[in-house]
Structure formats: C-alpha cells, structure tokens
C-alpha cells in the first residue's frame, strides 16, 4: 500500500509549529490510505478557520467554502454523486458556532458523510476569541472577564439529535484516532468525530498536557448503542471520555431516501434527464 498517496509536495503550511492540526492531517492521511480510498474519489469540504485549511494539505478534490457552511455543501455533493467519499472537516467555531444550524439539521438528514471537527476550544484564525466549546472562565481579548456561556458539548447535542455515529478523539493520539476516523468513514450515515486539538498559540489552558490529564478511553465493555448511557457518558466533565460514544442502529441515509435514486443509482451528472418532459408538458394541455 502506498503510504504517501495523499502527500503534497512543496506546500507552505500556514499552521503554527507544534499545533495539533499537523497530527490530525497525518491521522487523516493514514486513515484514508488504510481504507484504500483514491484521492480522485474523495472530496474534502471545509469552512474557514485554521482547521479549515486542511484540504489544501493533502491530495484530494476539495471544496474550501464559507465559514460555517461546510455541511450543506458536503451533503449536496454526496447527494449529487453518492459514489464519492465525502468528508466535512473544520474547526469548532465553524461547525458549532456560525454553522450551528447546519450541524443540527445535517444530523437529522443523516447523509453518508464524515464530519471531523478540530476542536481547539478557541477561534484560532481570528486570534483567540472564545468558541462555543471554550470552557467557563477562559480569558480572551473579547471575553475579558472570562467565558460565562455554557460550553457547547458536541457529543450530548449530537446524541440528542439522534446522530448515527458520535465519537471523540485526541489529536495527540495517532493510533487510536486513526482507528476511529476509519470507522467513522466506513460508517453508513452521518458520523461525527470531534477531535480535541491543542492550539499552541491561543489556548494556553487546554494544552497537550491538559488534555492528557483530562481524557480517558472508554473500555471494551462500553456499549455505544445504549443512548441514555451514551448521553450520560458524553456529559462527563471531570475527565473527557474518548472513543465511539454512540452509534445507533442501522438508519437509512439521506441519499437512500432520495427518490432520485430509487430506480437509478447513477450520479446526477451522468444522466439523460429529459425523457419525460413531453409528457409533463402535455399535462398542461389536458
């Protein structure tokens, strides 16, 4: 297997040295390579932010769209061509802040896409304001007296919306995260992978060290199919559980529900659509 399949040459990466984003890129490439996905069949969709630059750093089709709007784009790409592997990937501000409404309604739709969130609990690119996941008391140039809003817990929320796959990982742990990302991509339906990611420039609280001290992995006995248990687990605050927190029973995907694919699995761009037009036009005569 060609391990370098997704590598790009001679690019200037705009991330800060030591940032958690680098290893997420590494993890993603590994997972994709192990799954034998071809770059031409992959589309990476992102929004705007530091995390959102990731599609530029690997070989892939990419749609680097607007801040907060990656999920509608990703949903539509998958719906227009279900043969593509579609990953929507962006930062916590992008997905849970500006993009909050798409986040919740995309879960309801259950498209067969993977939603990877680089959760650094801060707005990186705009220089350190609070994000929805920033912890209480986190000081920033805007939140001068510290964050007071209840942090957004993507896991409990996704479970409340009946997401079909909900996982949390840590950017500092390659092996386990590769495994979960692979499972998420394989999963049929919407899969959320929230990756805890240290931001060395703007988050001096939730550092590599802090994360290491505040995470633990769910063990083998944990049953991700039990929704109430999952909700309870997802809400834990002292130590943050990692792993597949929730996975629901087989659920139909958005694409499977579309009548456009009822008798015809061809991607839209390949079709000859006008056969029935005459008939439709006649209906305005009768």
């Amino acid at each position, binding site marked *: 297997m060609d391990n370098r399949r997704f590598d790009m040459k001679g690019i200037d990466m705009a991330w800060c040295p030591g940032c958690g984003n680098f290893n997420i890129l590494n993890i993603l490439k590994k997972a994709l390579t192990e799954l034998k996905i071809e770059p031409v069949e992959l589309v990476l969709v992102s929004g705007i932010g530091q995390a959102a630059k990731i599609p530029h750093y690997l070989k892939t089709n*990419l749609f680097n*769209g607007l801040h907060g709007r990656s999920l*509608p784009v990703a949903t*539509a790409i998958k*719906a*227009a061509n279900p043969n593509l592997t579609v990953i929507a990937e962006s930062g916590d501000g992008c997905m849970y802040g500006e993009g909050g409404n798409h986040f919740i309604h995309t879960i309801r739709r259950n498209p067969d896409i993977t939603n990877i969130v680089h959760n650094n609990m801060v707005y990186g690119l705009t220089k350190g304001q609070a994000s929805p996941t920033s912890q209480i008391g986190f000081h920033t140039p805007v939140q001068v007296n510290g964050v007071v809003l209840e942090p957004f817990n993507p896991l409990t929320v996704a479970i409340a919306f009946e997401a079909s796959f909900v996982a949390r990982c840590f950017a500092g742990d390659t092996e386990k995260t590769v495994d979960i990302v692979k499972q998420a991509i394989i999963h049929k339906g919407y899969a959320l992978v929230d990756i805890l990611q240290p931001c060395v420039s703007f988050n001096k609280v939730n550092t590599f060290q802090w994360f290491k001290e505040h995470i633990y992995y769910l063990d083998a006995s944990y049953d991700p199919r039990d929704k109430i248990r999952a909700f309870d687990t997802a809400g834990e605050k002292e130590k943050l559980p990692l792993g597949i927190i929730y996975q629901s029973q087989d659920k139909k995907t958005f694409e499977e529900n579309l009548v456009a694919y009822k008798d015809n699995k061809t991607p839209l*761009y390949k079709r000859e659509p*006008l056969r029935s037009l*005459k008939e439709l036009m006649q209906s305005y005569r009768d």
Partner: protein
Amino acid sequence: MSRINDISIVLSGEAGQGLKTVELVLNRILKLAGYNLFATKEYMSRIRGGNNTTSIRISDSRISTLINRIDILLVLNKNGLSRLLKRITKNTLIIARRSDVETECKNAKCQIIDIPFIIFASNIGKAVYANTVAVGVLCGILKVKESIARDYIKKYFSKKPDEINNNILALSKGYEEGTKIQEKVKTTPKPVSGIKDDLLLNGTEAIALGAIAGGCNFISSYPMSPSTGVLVSLSKNAEKFGIVAEQAEDEISAINMAIGAWYAGARALVTTSGGGFALMGEGLSLAGITETPIVIHLAQRPGPATGLPTRTEQGDLELALYSGHGEFPRILLAPGRIEDGYYLMQKAFDLADRFQVPVIVLTDQYFVDSYYNIPSLSLPAKLKNHFIKTEKNYKRYNLIKNGLSPRGIPGYGKGLVSVDSDEHDQKGHITEDLDLRIKITDKRLKKIAEIRKVIMPPVLTGNKDYKTLLVGWGSTYHVIKEAMENIGRKDLAFLHYNWIWPLHGDTKKYLKQAKKTVIIENNATSQFGKLIRMQTGIDINHRILKYNGLAFSVEEMESYIKKALEAK
C-alpha cells in the same frame, strides 16, 4: 377603452374557502371549451378568512393581462365586496347571496343576482361545493358545453371518487342558474377552435417546467411566498425526472447546497423571495469567487423585511444586482411573458453552466400567479453540459484568455478539482500571491465581455419612429403593451427588457432616439431607471411607479401613460 372583445370575471371569497379550486377547475374548463383566457389572483397573508380574489378575463383573441373593469363579480361570502367597490360600476353584474352584498351595493347602485352559493351547496351536502356551484354558474352564463365541464370535474376529482357525484350535482345546479341569466351579459366572447389544445400554465409552472427543460436535477430551498410553488412543482416531479429536492433548514443552507451540487456535477436551482435572498448574499459571493454556476429564482414581493408577503412588487432588482460582497460577474433575467419564464429558465441553466456565474431570474407574485393559454412551447434540444472530463494535472482556474477556464467535476476524469472561497491560484489552492490576485480577478471579470456577446436585446413594440419611448422590465410586459395599443398613438413605442444585466448596449441608442422617455416599474424608487442611468448616463425622469402591492391594470396603465404623454 379596451378594444378587445372580452369579459372580465372576478371571484371574491375568503382564504381557505376553496378559491384555488375554482381557479384550477374553471380556468382549465374554459380553455378546454376553447376560450382565450387570462387569470390572476391577489390574496392576503392568512390561511382562513379575510378577502381574496381571482380575476379571469376571457376573450376571442389572446389576452394576457389584468384589467380593472369587472363585468361579472361572484361574491361567495360576507365581506367579499368592500375591497372591490372602487372597481364596480352600474354595469357590473354581481352574483351573490343578496344579503351578503345588499348594504354595500345600495350606494354603488349595482345589479345583484341572488344566488346563494353556500345554501345551494349545503343542500347538496357541504358548504365547500359552493365553489363548484360558482364554476357551474359561470359555465352556464358563458354557454360552455356542460359535458366539457362535467368531464373535467370528474377528472379533477378522480383521486377522491366520493366527491365526484356531489360536485357534478353542484355543477349542474350552478349551470342551471347560470343559463337563466345568460341574457344579462351583453357580450360574451366566442370559443375559438384550436385553443383547447393550448397549454395553460401559470408563471410558477412555466418556471418549474423551464428548469426541468434546462436540466435542473437538484433543488434546495426554504419555503417563502411567492417562490414556494417552484419548490413544490419540482418536488412533485422529483421521482419522474430524478431530481434531488430538499427543503433546507434555512436559505443559507439552501444556496450552499445548490453550490455544492453544481460543484459535483448537478444542475441546481434555488427558489426564494427577497427576504430569503437577502440571506444568500454570502453564498452568491462564494459562487462568484469559486466560479461555480448557480441558478436562483427570485420571486419578488413587497418589502422591506416581511413587508406584504403575498403581494407583488419589482423591488429587489438592485438587491439582485449588488448582493454579495466583493466584485464578480452575474446575469439577471426577468421574464415578461409566461413563455419567457419557460425559455429563460432553460437559458439560465445554460448560461450559468457556460459562464460559471450566478444567474438570477427575477419574477414576482403577479407573474408566478398569473395564467394564460399559450399555443405551444418547444421542447429543448439534447442537453449540453459544459463541464469537462479532467486530465491528471487539471487546473480548475487555468488562466486562459477569455477567462472561461474549463470546469471539471470531482470523480469525472483523472484530475483533482479544488475550489476555494479564499483567493486562489490556478489550481484552486489558497494563495497570498498578490500579483496572482490581480490575474485571477481579471480572469473573473473578463467573463463579462464574453457574456456581453450573448445578451438578448430588449424588444421594441410599437412604431419604430417613436417620439415617446416607454421602458419596462419583467412582469409588466403585457400590461404596458396592451395599454399602449389601446392608446393607439403612432409616435409611441415600448422597449421591454427580459435580460436585465449586463444591460444591452443598444439601450442608449434607443433612449436617445426618443423625445420623451417614460420608465414604468412596480416599485417606489425606479430601480431599473437608476440602473439605466448608471450605465448610460441618461435620466429617465418620467416615472410611472406603483408600490401598493398590486400589479398595474390596463386601464390604470393607460391613464398613467396618457398623463406622462401630456406632461412636459
């Protein structure tokens, strides 16, 4: 005033009372019976109660616009008259339950024919049959063959077989009553052979049909009057035509989905109205910088904000023209005739695909809710997609001369397709190379020159040697034309724009030829007039503007034009 041999019928009732059925059934019966007809409606933003009207005009010749005069007024319930008093004369025949209209009629001195629709209907079974009684009455008056009406009613209710018999009874009852009063109606137009095979569709249907004919196979939209009909129509046809039809959670999602769909090779449409469109500006700008095609149907209604949700206005032209931050080309179309709705929608998809720009099709409530019969619409030739199969080293934004870098789509060919909302290099990757910024901006803007080569010219009606030139755009086409023809002056012509932006280069020439120019718009600030001035420097200072939420009627237009002709 009108030189057309026509009869004007208005039905007035409450919301939720079934006027829509009357409209759907009666219009079609009349067409099948061989009448030329025009029909439109105006309605309140509520589900029940209030007062709504449907106007139907029938004629020997083809007609396609609203008149003010009412020859026959059917009032289906109490409170159905007050909003119409201004339009009633002693020649108006009012058909209603006498007690519903008596008091108000006293002052207006109009003729009442007492037909208690609801009582008749209740006798048959349910109040709702009143609509069918009304259809019957009108068929009787107009001497429509009862069998045509009956057959259509059967067809219409074929999915509710229980309802067929009672509706037939209601129709007959009405027909009988109508026949009795035939002689009260002075002139009735005659059926014309061949009309029964005409198409009868309203603006919404024309737009939807045009979209399908244009290869539309994806629609993502959020409901909003008066644009929702197009979403409904495409959803209904989704299975037959393989269309992905999705109601988005909001308008921002709608436009981003549509852009994503085009990126992946679909032909996507968004239908919306001003308030929804105002939320799509950022998305439009995204289409602009990524050069992703998109087609937007913008059905205008009076603003600002929620405004008058179910009324009509041409108030969003400037918004459509300037919406979205930064600078990028776009195309604006605005059909005047229902036929244009069909053809321009097809064109919109082709233009979007070819020039990789947003194409916005502006209609309005009056346009989408109006019907008239049309002899035929031609079927499109085989669909031509403009995207390419990519090669290995594909560059999405290849700096070729005319700016039209061939568009690839992911998964088709060996190349990778990268698009970016940031300024990007030829490969679609984010860049801070500021010299490249200029090149890529120039490339985007160059497409305007390419688009200019295919602009449809405005259409001149009337005398080529005009002294006074009327100028209009979009849905006012028919009413201006008919009013001008009624006025019948030799020195008058009318220039109508279906293609709004980029503005056709002949505009200045046309305006300069005139001694007097008059701009006519369904808005308060003459947005198209301002656009013309921006492009040509010419100030059209005779303005006919209407902004109470209603469309112009022919008579109104005539009198405004006459006033403008008299003014200095």
